[in-house]
Structures are given as C-alpha cells and as structure tokens.
C-alpha cells in the first residue's frame, strides 16, 4: 500500500496537474495562434494565415533598438551580479566570521522589497546625488535585484563541494587564486551558469524598477508596456512576444538539462 496516496487520490491529482498545465500553457498557445492571424484585432473567427506581423517587428527599428538595449543591460547586470554573488557565496560558505547572520540577511534582503519601493528609492537616490537616468542606472538596479538570486543558486552548490579538495590544492602549493580558478570554479560552474541565466532573464524581463530609473533609451519591457496602449501595434507585439517566450523557454529548459547532466558528471567524479 502506498502511504502517501490512494489510487483515487492519485488519479484526482493527476487530473488537477493536467488541468493546471493546460491553464498555464493555454494563454501562451493563444498568443502563438494569433501571431499568425491575418487581422488587426486578435479575435475570433480566425481570418487566415500571415507572417505580416513577424515581418513588421523585424523591420521596426524602435522595437529592435529596445531589444538590443535590454540585451545589453541584461548582459552587463547578470555578469556583475554573478561576480558579486560568487564572492559573497565563497565568504558565506567557506569562511567563519561574526555577524554572518546579519550579513546574509542583508545580502538576501533585496528579495523581499516590493519593486515599486525599490524603484522609487533608486529614483530619489539618483536624483539626490545628481546621477542622470540612463542605461547605467537600470543596470545598477538590476544588479541589486538579481544578486540574491545568484547567491541562492551558488551557495547550495558550493556547500556540496568537499572543502578538503581546496585544502589539498593549497597543500600542493596552489595559491588561493589558483585554487579558485582550477578547483572551485570548475566545480561550481553549473550553478554559475544557472545564476547567469536567472540574472539575465530577470533583468531582460524587468519592468517595475526600470520604469523609474530608465533614461531615453527604453528597454524592451518598457517599449512593450507603451505599445500595449496602441491597438495598431498589438499584432506585432504578440509576434515578438511569441519569439521571446519560445527563445526563453528553449534556453532555460536546455540550460536546466545541461546543468543536470553536468552535475551528474561532476557528482560521479567526486565519489
């Protein structure tokens, strides 16, 4: 007898799981369908197949500019956040020092601030110290909000690694930097890659904070938010939505599978 689930319970939960998956994916599927629909308004009945909207978004310079800006901001902020996250994780996992609890609370605290509050805080801060709003201010905001996520991903991986490996490297004459470069970094690489990915997607998708600190070069979410108010732009926005969603799904799922494989391989090598 199964202690956790009866036969009927299992069946009911399987149905619930199935309906939830349908609920989660149906809106995405609807966007997909209407991105090929030959009508200005997304409504039934469907009025024929077209690639017009995809063509329009490919030739829309504002939209492409916004995508490029977002990619640049996401690349800069994710690399910076992961670098800071690795440093902080090394200290939190490998070092003993007083006030560790308070420091880790500080490092994770951006997780629990409502973004509207953080957005206006940064706005007032940059205003008070006289820094004009630009791409840089958005990058700074995104580094702060992604930093705790990178720590949450890297710390568990780091604490799985046997500290004696590092001691052995030190005994064999490696400097701390060499130990990090040749022992620690390869072992935490899967987590570093996931952290990069999480930070990148967080930044690429972030509207709330960016809306307060963005300069004249708009990011993709801010362009999107603006475009939602103009019905004439809706179809091409749906088309780009489909492309962005599918690309992010493929990248994330692919990376997750890759991370699993890498961790399994590293796990086998360790034992």
């Amino acid at each position, binding site marked *: 007898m199964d*202690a956790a689930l009866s036969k009927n319970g299992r069946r009911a939960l399987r149905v619930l799981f199935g309906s939830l998956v349908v609920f989660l994916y149906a809106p995405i599927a609807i966007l997909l369908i209407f991105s090929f629909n030959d009508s200005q308004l997304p409504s039934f009945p469907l009025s024929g197949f077209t690639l017009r909207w995809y063509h329009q978004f490919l030739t829309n310079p504002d939209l492409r500019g916004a995508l490029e800006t977002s990619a640049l901001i996401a690349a800069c902020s994710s690399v910076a956040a992961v670098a800071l996250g690795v440093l902080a994780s090394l200290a939190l996992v490998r070092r003993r020092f007083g006030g560790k609890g308070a420091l880790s609370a500080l490092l994770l605290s951006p997780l629990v601030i409502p973004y509207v509050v953080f957005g*206006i805080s940064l706005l007032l801060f940059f205003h*008070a110290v006289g820094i004009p709003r630009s791409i840089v201010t958005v990058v700074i905001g995104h580094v702060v909000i992604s930093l705790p996520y990178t720590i949450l991903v890297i710390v568990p991986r780091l604490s799985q690694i046997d500290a004696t490996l590092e001691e052995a490297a030190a005994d064999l004459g490696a400097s701390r930097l060499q130990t990090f470069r040749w022992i620690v970094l390869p072992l935490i690489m899967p987590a570093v890659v996931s952290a990069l990915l999480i930070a990148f997607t967080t930044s690429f998708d972030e509207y709330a904070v960016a809306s307060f600190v963005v300069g004249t070069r708009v990011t993709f979410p801010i362009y999107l938010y603006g475009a939602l108010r103009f019905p004439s732009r809706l179809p091409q926005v749906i088309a780009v939505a489909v492309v*962005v969603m599918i690309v992010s799904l493929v990248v994330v799922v692919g990376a997750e599978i890759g991370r699993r494989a890498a961790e399994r391989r590293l796990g086998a090598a360790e034992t």
Partner: protein
Amino acid sequence: MSAEAPAAEATPRGRRTRSRIDLTTPGLLGLPVACLLVFFLCPIAIVGAYSVDALHGPSLFGEAHKLTLAGWHALFHDGVYLRLFWKSVKTSLIVSVIVVALAYPVAYYLALSGTKRKYVLLLVLIAPFLTSYLLRVLAWKVILGNRGVLNTFLFWTGVRSPDHPLSQLLYSRFAVILVLAYIWIPFVALPIFVSLDSLDRRLLEAAGDLGASRWQAFVRVTLPLSMPGVVAAFLFVFIPTVGEFVTPSLVGGTSGYLYGNQIADLFSTGYPDWQTGSVLALFLLGVVALLTIALTRFLRLGEAAAR
C-alpha cells in the same frame, strides 16, 4: 576577481595559523556588501529623508529644510491611503491563498506519487514562470477584452450575442487576481515541492503502521513538515503582490487600482508628490519587513521543533 588578489598575497605571510583564512573575508564580502549599502540601503534612507521633507530641492547638498511629519500625519488620518492599502492586502491574501491551494496538491503529486519523471514534470510546471512577465499579462489582455479572444469566441460559437459580451472580465479586480494567480502558480510550486520532496517517506509508513489513516498521516505528519515550504511560498507571493502596480495598471482599470499604483502615480510626471509617495513607500516597506521577520522566525521555530 580583484577581491581575490589580496587573498593570494596574504597566503605566504599567514601560513602559520588557520585564522589566516579570515583575513580574506573582507576581500570577498567587500564588493557585494558595498554594492548593497550604496545602491540599496542608502536609497531607502533617502526615501526616509524625503518622507519627512528633509530633502526637497534638486540636490542632496541644497539648503536645509524644516522637518515635517505632515506626510505621515496624512497617511494615518486621511483614510484614503489606508483603505487602499487594506484593499491591496486583501487582494494579495486572496491571490496567495488561491496560488498556494492550487500549487500544493500538484507539488504533492509530483513529490510523493513516486512518478519517475517528477523533475521533468516539475520543469513543465515551472517553465512558464521563466518566460516574460509582461507578455503573460499581455496574453490575458488579449483573451479577456470585450472584443477579446474569449468574448469573440463566445459570439462566434453563438453562446453569447455580440450585444452582450462578458464585460466585467478585463479592467476589474477579478482580472487582477486571475492574472496574478496565473503568474505566481509556477513559482510557488517550487518551494512547496522542495519541502515535500525532502520528506522522509518512512515517516508516512510509520504513521500508517501505527494506525493512522492517510488523511491523518497527512494532517499530522506531511502538512506540518511541509509548512516551511508553504510559508516561504506564501511570502514570495504576498510581498511582490502587495506592492504590485504593473498588472493592475494593465488589466485592473479603476476597480483594480491598488496601493502600488498610488505610489507609482505619486512619482509619475502628472501630479508628483514625492513626500507623500515616500511616506506610502516606507509604510509598505515597514509592513513587509515586519511580516518577513515574523514569518522567518516562525520558520526557524518550526525547523527547531522538527528536530
């Protein structure tokens, strides 16, 4: 990696004692902590300064102002803001409860039904969270409108006539709750799954051997042991939702207008009032901080009790 450099230099000198390792700790923590001090805590302090009108002019080093608590007075005596805050709290509670109630059984199924592909199914569940937030709101905007996908589908199939669309769908509090629940379900499934997956199944077998029914075993063993995951999930939905302004401004209309919209509007270009806005923001931050501290205490106590 510049912070690692002093660590490398410190090695030859401090080889005698183990405490040399601690020498490098400031080097590792310096940059991340400085980053948060300057770009996280300092901005919040500046909001505090604005909330009492200590800063007003165009620059930090302008002339000094008289402090005033007028903004705080307005918050607590003029009921408008508090009512709006309460509305946001209620909306967030509804969203959090719906989301946890839907995600829990599904996470339970994945973690405890013994299905071999549980990680694959989990990824299927979580993947939508990793696509764009705004685009998922957009999808619902397309679906729920008066001339949207759902209504025109009903007209087309003849279920409703075009003169009588389901008009309360978009631009309502219902739409805000629906969309936010849609957005959070995948995210919430994860912490609950983790807490259930780490559950020792032998405990359930033991409960069964001692005569507990499955339901009793669930209520007395599984549910208490998974509470940390549930509380974490609740917190991770409640906190962003109580300050949410993006979804309400896109699908909420006037009846879905929330506290976060009020804050954002006080800083927008229309009729900015930075002092009142700062007061509202700090109040929200204070409530969220207290809630976080209280619930993390609860989690710690729970963990201690489980041991």
